[in-house]
């Protein structure tokens, strides 16, 4: 089996100034992350997630054990060239602006000037910072800095993407976008190591997870397997008459099963995205990030294409993404009416059809990948459980009383 990341009883003990062992940050960790897998590393604060990543990347030396990334050492430039890394916080040069920042990182990857330029524009567009790209990064808000950090991690179109709490500080649209991005990248055959304690993020995108506590793995396995409640079923319908409901009730009583009926609640995420979309449609100006859920072309290219680089270089920038160019101009103008492509995208996102796209499409793809030929119904049930887990505890109780769950169709 080919592993993208592999650790062998990896241990990190931090000792104090006198050399006495103080903290067992990572304790005998054996991780195997398969190629083309979205792997979630979960755990409470201080459980050793970041420390594990730092050891993978050679920023810390393991006290014991060893780790491999893409079959090599994490401090080998050849391996580094194929990795994208988003650290826990955005550590950026405050005096550079967004474009200069990305250019700097692009140069570190020795990207040819043309490719670099193209990708910078594409990434700026994707993370919604094109309009503020000439402001120095030091003046950015936390989430804006985070977005630049993400763009930086993607500039080399990495095979293995290591994200340490990528969604902290990001608005829901940004969060949604990262999740979509992760799914897209996974479709293209990339491997993603995602560290987080935001369960909502993880369950939406991860194939497998491991939960760390005190530097040790507590559980590990496929998200589906870990979360599925095999003793429950969920049915979601359009509005139906009370008479039909009664009929269904009878049917269920016949099977001696418990049930509840409610109208499904909208998820706050979809609601938020819709609100922002409305504001954007009204062309209110912002000096923050302009959120879209677009993903840069070069990251979406089919993995089978032999050399994406060649393709990118060979076609001129404008031809490559005419839609993008128009968008940018409009966005920069700020108060002009909303550009056509953007509107489409957003309404796609928030409209009734779109909502299903957001929540359903990824899940479906995921499920397909995990287990081909899964029955449709079962999948829906599974998703319901996931959704329940995402929502906060108070609302969860309420939801459990409601028969329809919180599906969004």
């Amino acid at each position, binding site marked *: 089996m080919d592993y993208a990341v592999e650790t062998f009883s990896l241990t990190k003990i931090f000792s104090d100034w006198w050399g006495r062992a103080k903290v067992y940050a990572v304790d005998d960790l054996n991780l195997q992350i398969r190629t083309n897998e979205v792997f979630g590393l979960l755990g409470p604060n201080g459980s050793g997630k970041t420390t594990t990543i730092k050891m993978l990347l050679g920023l810390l030396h393991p006290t014991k054990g060893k780790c491999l990334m893409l079959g090599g050492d994490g401090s080998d430039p050849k391996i580094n060239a194929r990795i994208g890394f988003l650290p826990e916080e955005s550590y950026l040069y405050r005096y550079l602006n967004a474009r200069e920042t990305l250019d700097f990182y692009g*140069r*570190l990857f020795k990207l040819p000037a043309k490719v670099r330029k193209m990708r910078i524009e594409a990434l700026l567009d994707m993370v919604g910072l094109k309009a503020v790209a000439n402001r120095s990064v030091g003046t950015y808000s936390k989430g804006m800095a985070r977005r630049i*950090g993400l763009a930086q991690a993607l500039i080399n179109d990495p095979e293995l993407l290591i994200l340490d709490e990528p969604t902290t500080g990001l608005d829901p649209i940004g969060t949604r976008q990262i999740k979509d991005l992760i799914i897209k990248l996974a479709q293209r055959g990339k491997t993603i190591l995602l560290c987080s304690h935001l369960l909502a993020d993880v369950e939406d995108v991860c194939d497998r997870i491991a939960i760390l506590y005190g530097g040790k793995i507590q559980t590990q396995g496929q998200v589906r397997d870990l979360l599925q409640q095999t003793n429950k079923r969920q049915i979601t319908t359009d509005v139906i008459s009370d008479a039909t409901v009664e009929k269904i009730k009878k049917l269920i009583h016949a099977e001696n099963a418990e049930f509840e009926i409610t109208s499904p609640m909208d998820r706050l995420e979809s609601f938020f995205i819709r609100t922002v979309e409305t504001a954007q449609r009204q062309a209110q100006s912002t000096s923050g990030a302009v959120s879209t859920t677009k993903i840069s072309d070069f990251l979406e290219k089919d993995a089978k294409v032999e050399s994406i680089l060649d393709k990118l270089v060979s076609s001129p920038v404008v031809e490559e993404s005419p839609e993008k160019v128009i968008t940018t101009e409009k966005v920069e103008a700020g108060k002009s009416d909303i550009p056509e492509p953007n509107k489409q995208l957003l309404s796609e996102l928030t409209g009734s059809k779109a909502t299903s796209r957001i929540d359903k499409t990824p899940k479906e793809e995921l499920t397909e990948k995990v287990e081909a030929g899964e029955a449709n119904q079962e999948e829906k049930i599974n998703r319901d459980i996931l959704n329940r887990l995402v929502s906060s505890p108070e609302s969860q109780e309420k939801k459990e009383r409601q028969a329809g769950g919180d599906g969004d169709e």
Partner: protein
Amino acid sequence: MNSIWAVAKNTIKQALRMKIAVVFIILLLALLPVLGVSTTGDETIKGRLQTFISYGLSLTSFLLCLLTIAISIYTVTNDIKEKQIFTIITKPIRRFEFLTGKLLGVILLDMLLLVIFSIIIYSIAVYMPKFYQVNSVELAQAKTEFFTARAALVIPQQDFTEQARERFNKLKAEDALPENMSPAEVIREINNQMQVLSRAADIGDGIEWEFENVKPLADSIFIRFKYEVLQETPDSRIYSRWVVGDPHSVRTGEPGKTPVFVQDYRHTTETFHEIEIPSEVIPESGKLAVVFYNYPSNDTVVMFPKDGMEVLFKADNFTMNFIRSVILILSRLVFLTCLGILTSTFLSFPVAILLCLVLFVTASFSGFVLESFDFLSRNVGILYTYTLKWIVQILPEFDKYNPTKFLVPARLLSWSFVGQCILFMVCIKSFLLLVLAFLIFTYREIAKIVV
């Protein structure tokens, strides 16, 4: 290369963002012209020029040294402290390439600043005679004694060890040896005294020196000297006669093919003076005799200090000399950059700065420090010999390669001397520091937090 260059470029930006860089630059830009106007020296234009060059260049060099130390340390330690380095060294760049980029950035910035300030100093110096509207005599003096580069022939060091040993044996036979002194010390002392004697002229007596290979490139050669006296004369001046010419003619008084230069002077003691002598007195053989006669009216013995008497002749022009001076300063900055980068691979900003400043000061007075250590070592012994002395010797000798020492007396700063400086200071010492820095940095745990 692309990535090293990216780091270098970023380093320059970072440095310029650092407030103290801007403060230093403004300070220098303001001070240099002020220096140009306010320096007086001995009121002659040559004196003004000498003082200006001396202060201007020293100040520039000193401030740039401080700036270099600060920037090179800041740029590395800050990247570690603010953790930007996490996203840099996880990119396909080796750690030594990162440091090389930092080094390159600081050195490029240094070069840029050095060129700017050198041009300012040079322009002020060249413009100064016009500014003061000096008369032609002073102007000529400035031309021949400042705006030039002169090679020097110094008195060959005579070795009196043999005589000293003989004298020692004699003293020993007479049992007149001083107490508390080892034989070696006694011999050294006797040797020193004989050296001094050989450079001294008794009352009403003279000294004769003979120089070889005197090749004048210009119309004049110069004798540069300083008097020291045993007993101060009433007006602090020495009445003297200087005779310069073909050794044979000078000794015998017979006229030769070339004329003999004879002139009486009154010169103050304890300062350097120059006598201009027409080149026509030099015979074809290139041998030149110089005689100093101490008039009896002085009523004191006159001595010339160790480097207090030399024959100077033009060998190059001021501009080239100035350029070579700037190269000396640059080597110094390169060394300090490497030192700064080395210390910042394992120390935090304040500690690294402190260490570098101590080493910088030590290097600036390395001659003095070594001497005083030598003196101390009689008591301190091996401990010192194997620790401090070793460190001091590893440091470059900034005082030896101090350009003002050459520019003020308009002395030729030869390419071979500059080459020697580059070889020792840059190619060997800086390189060693850099290799050490690479090693430490490569094996260092970057993300380790030391509280």
